[in-house]
């Protein structure tokens, strides 16, 4: 990557807190704020715990008519712009791009509308209007009134990682001066039922990489990074740098990862090749680590063979799996851990699995060094990885 891609602002909210500092404090305190879903009911014999954003974050009346996913994205955007010190009027004079990942934010799956349609009633069109007005990237683009390129990435669970990587490419190609990149997703009945039907939702708190792991917990939230060229404000302190991005394709199966982790290896190879960074330079790896049998098996194999002896953890046990937001939230967390030079305990890890032969961090672990990698695997065989570097934030 030629041009330095600087991260000058980080916004993040999820079940672990509203704002990156609160989220990180919750994680280092070892708190796991999961509960049965409150926003909807289902008829499953037993509930699957979820990581929901706690109330109190949703304070902007002008956002009220949007999907929650887009409101989460806007909240993360505000935090990120505050930290970056950008005003909306300053941004309008620049070429500003927007790249957001999501799953629910692009799905026309309003159940109340569709049930009405199906029953032969004349359903209220408000859910459809709201869907059409709520594309997560377009919402940010419109709210800021900028006119650069804009895209919502729908690569399922790697969307947030891809959004940050592709936004970095836009900067480096000279397409934009600033890119707001991240992801947003909300908990909803549709995905809740979908993951339950696939039998990969856990009825307890998730236990990623453990021998008795029993599936994932869904979560919700958003993160937005302000990416900008170093040359734009060379005196501005930066939170971090996007040093490398790679993606890879399994070409294998809709829901099962490639057994050898083909696409993930490809993503890692590209991220290292384009950044010129060696695996040995990494201080830690933020693994995808959903806690499903298949994900953790494929991911461990690749970690063992491609990135041996590098400490790793997963944050899914603190945030839940936030789908299209996961890669963005984890990029934000990876940067925060780099800035603290401490990595958290991998929540939920108990007994090692001899088959995986990999043990994530069990306790809060200090480290030296400035580089880390965050990776995501997705349905459809999408895999993506980011290499992030610690910035010069004054703590």
């Amino acid at each position, binding site marked *: 990557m030629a041009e330095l891609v600087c991260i000058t602002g980080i916004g993040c909210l999820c079940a672990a807190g509203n704002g990156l500092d609160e989220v990180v404090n919750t994680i280092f305190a070892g708190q796991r704020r999961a509960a049965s879903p409150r926003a909807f009911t289902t008829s499953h014999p037993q509930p699957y715990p979820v990581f929901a954003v706690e109330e109190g974050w949703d304070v902007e009346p002008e956002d009220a008519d949007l999907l929650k996913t887009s409101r989460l994205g806007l909240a993360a955007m505000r935090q990120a712009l505050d930290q970056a010190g950008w005003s909306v009027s300053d941004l309008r004079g620049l070429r500003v791009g927007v790249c957001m990942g999501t799953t629910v934010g692009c799905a026309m799956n309003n159940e109340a509308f569709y049930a009405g349609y199906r029953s032969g009633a004349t359903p209220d069109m408000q859910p459809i209007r709201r869907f059409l007005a709520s594309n997560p990237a377009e919402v940010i683009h419109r709210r800021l009134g900028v006119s650069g390129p804009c895209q919502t990435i729908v690569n399922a669970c790697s969307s947030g990682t891809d959004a940050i990587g592709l936004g970095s490419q836009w900067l480096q190609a000279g397409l934009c001066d600033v890119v707001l990149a991240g992801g947003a997703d909300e908990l909803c009945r549709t995905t809740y039922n979908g993951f339950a*039907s*696939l*039998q990969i939702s856990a009825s307890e708190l998730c236990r990623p990489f453990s021998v008795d792991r029993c599936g994932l917990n869904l979560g919700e939230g958003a993160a937005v990074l302000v990416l900008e060229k170093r040359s734009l404000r060379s005196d501005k302190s930066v939170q971090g740098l996007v040093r490398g991005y790679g993606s890879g394709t399994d070409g294998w*199966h809709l829901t099962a990862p490639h057994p050898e982790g083909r696409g993930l290896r490809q993503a890692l190879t590209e991220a290292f090749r384009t950044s010129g960074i060696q695996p040995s330079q990494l201080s830690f790896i933020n693994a995808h680590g959903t806690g499903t049998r298949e994900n953790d098996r494929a991911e461990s194999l690749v970690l063992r063979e491609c990135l041996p002896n590098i400490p790793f953890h997963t944050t899914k046990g603190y945030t839940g799996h936030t789908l299209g937001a996961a890669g963005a939230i984890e990029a934000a967390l990876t940067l925060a851990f780099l800035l603290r030079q401490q990595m958290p305990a991998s929540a939920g890890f108990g007994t090692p699995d001899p088959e995986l032969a990999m043990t994530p961090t069990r306790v809060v672990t200090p480290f030296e060094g400035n580089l880390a990698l965050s990776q995501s695997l997705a349905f459809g065989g999408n895999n993506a990885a980011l290499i992030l570097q610690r910035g010069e934030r004054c703590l």
Partner: protein
Amino acid sequence: MTIKEKLKQILVEDLNLEDITPEEINDEDPLFGEGLGLDSLDAVELVVLVQKHFGVEIKDMEQGRPALQSVNTLAAFIEQNQA
């Protein structure tokens, strides 16, 4: 229609096995791998289909694996567990 006949019909129609008819499925054909060529996504779909058509719950894959070997084993599981 017997349970086995119904199962074969479900396999072909609900799993969209476009190149085979229910009559061509043998009771002891392995459902996965070399037999009918079903995969992990078909396995979880079958769990739902068994619940929907026969009212029989397969709690998880631990319980499901022995039942989901062939039409024979699945039919036997359904018979044992039907109310």
